[in-house]
C-alpha cells in the first residue's frame, strides 16, 4: 500500500526586475518524498507550478557550487539540504544574502568574479621553466599546506554568511582571500609579493572581524576564516619587514 503523499509549503522570495519594485514572497505547496532535496522541491515548482521561477543549479551533488540559497535564513547548497528536515514546517528560500538579486533566486556575481581575477588565482612560477625540466615535485607536507584551501567550489555561501561583506561590498571577502592564500602558500608559486598588496589593502583582510560564520557554512570545510585570519598575521609581518627590506606598496 503506497504511503500517503506528503505536502510541504515552500515560500520563495520572488523578484522580477521587469515588473516588481521590491521582492515579495510566494508560497507553493509541493508534494515530496523523504529523499527529495530543497533543490528538487524548487525544480518541482518550475516544472509543474510556475515555469517562470528562476534559479541556478547543475550537478545536484554539492560539487558545482551553483545552487546556493538562503534556506530558512541560513546559507546552504539547496542540493544537500533535505525537505524532510523542515516538514511539517514551511521552507523559506531566498537568493543568497548580501548579493544583488537579478531575478528570483539568481544573484549577480560580477563583483565576485572581479575579485577572483584580482587575486591572480593561478600559479605564478618563481622562474621560467621549460617542458624538458618536467613536472614540479611536492612533498606531502608542501601539499598539506594548501590542500584544504584548494577545495573551494566558489559557491559563495561564505559571502552570504559574512556581514562585513554585506556592509562593505568592496571587501575582497572569504572565498577570494582563501584562494589568494591557497596560491601564496603553494611551494610552486612565486606571486606572493604581488598578492600581498591586496591582502594589505583597505578592502583586504582587515575588513574581517572574525565572525567565523563563513567557516561554519562552507560545504567543503575549507575554513575561509582561518585563511583570512592567518593573512592578518602575514600582513602585519609584511608591514614590519618592509622597514627592513623595502619593497612594493599597498593597493
Amino acid at each position, binding site marked *: 500500500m503506497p504511503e500517503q503523499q506528503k505536502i510541504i509549503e515552500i515560500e520563495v522570495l520572488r523578484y522580477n*526586475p521587469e515588473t516588481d519594485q521590491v521582492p515579495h514572497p510566494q508560497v507553493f505547496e509541493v508534494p515530496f518524498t523523504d529523499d527529495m532535496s530543497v533543490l528538487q522541491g524548487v525544480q518541482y515548482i518550475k516544472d509543474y507550478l510556475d515555469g517562470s521561477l528562476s534559479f541556478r543549479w547543475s550537478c545536484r551533488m554539492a560539487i558545482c557550487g551553483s545552487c546556493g540559497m538562503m534556506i530558512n*535564513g541560513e546559507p546552504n547548497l539547496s542540493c544537500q539540504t533535505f525537505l524532510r528536515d523542515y516538514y511539517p514546517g514551511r521552507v523559506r528560500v531566498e537568493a543568497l544574502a*548580501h548579493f*544583488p538579486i*537579478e531575478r528570483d533566486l539568481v544573484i549577480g556575481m560580477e563583483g565576485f568574479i572581479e575579485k577572483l581575477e584580482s587575486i591572480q588565482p593561478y600559479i605564478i612560477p618563481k622562474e621560467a621553466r621549460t617542458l624538458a625540466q618536467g613536472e614540479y615535485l611536492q612533498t606531502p607536507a608542501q601539499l598539506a599546506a594548501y590542500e584544504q584551501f584548494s577545495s573551494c567550489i566558489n559557491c559563495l555561501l561564505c559571502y552570504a554568511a559574512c556581514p562585513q561583506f554585506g556592509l562593505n561590498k568592496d571587501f575582497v571577502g572569504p572565498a577570494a582571500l582563501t584562494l589568494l592564500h591557497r596560491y601564496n602558500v603553494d611551494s610552486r608559486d612565486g606571486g606572493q609579493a604581488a598578492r600581498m598588496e591586496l591582502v594589505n589593502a583597505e578592502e583586504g583582510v582587515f575588513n574581517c572581524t*572574525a565572525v*567565523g*560564520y563563513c567557516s561554519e557554512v562552507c560545504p567543503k570545510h575549507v575554513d575561509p*576564516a582561518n585563511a583570512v585570519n592567518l593573512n592578518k598575521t602575514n600582513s602585519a609581518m609584511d608591514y614590519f619587514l618592509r622597514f627592513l627590506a623595502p619593497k612594493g606598496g599597498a593597493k
Partner: protein
Amino acid sequence: MSKRRPYVRPMDGWWRKNPYFVEYMIHEGTALFVAAYAAVLLFGLLRLAQGEAAWNGWLLALKSPWSIGFHLLALAAIGYHAYTWFKIMPRTMPPVIVGGKRLSAWAITGSGLAAAGIASLALFALVWGMAR
C-alpha cells in the same frame, strides 16, 4: 535595452537575522565590560596618586553593594568573553601539528581555556597571599 535591474537588499538589523550573529554581537558586546573594569582599576591608580584619603575612599566605594554587583556582572561577562575568544582561536592560528597530526580545534580551545583558568587562579592565590 537591458532589462536588468538588480535589487540590493538592505542590511538593517542584520545581526538579529541569525542566531550566530546574535551570539557574535553578545561576544563583541562583553568586551565593553573588559574596558569598564580596566577603567575602574585605572581610576584606583589615579586615586592612589592623590594620597591616602583618596585611596581609602576608592577602597570604600568598592565595598558598596552597587560595586559588588557590577564586579559580579563583569566577572560573568568577561568569563563569557574569554570562552568565545578561545572558541574562535583555532580559526586564527596556523595549523598546530603534534605527532604528525593536526591538533583539533577543541584541543586548542580547551588548552586556551585551561591556561586562562590556571593563570587566573595563580593570580588570585598570589593576591590572596599578599592581602593576608
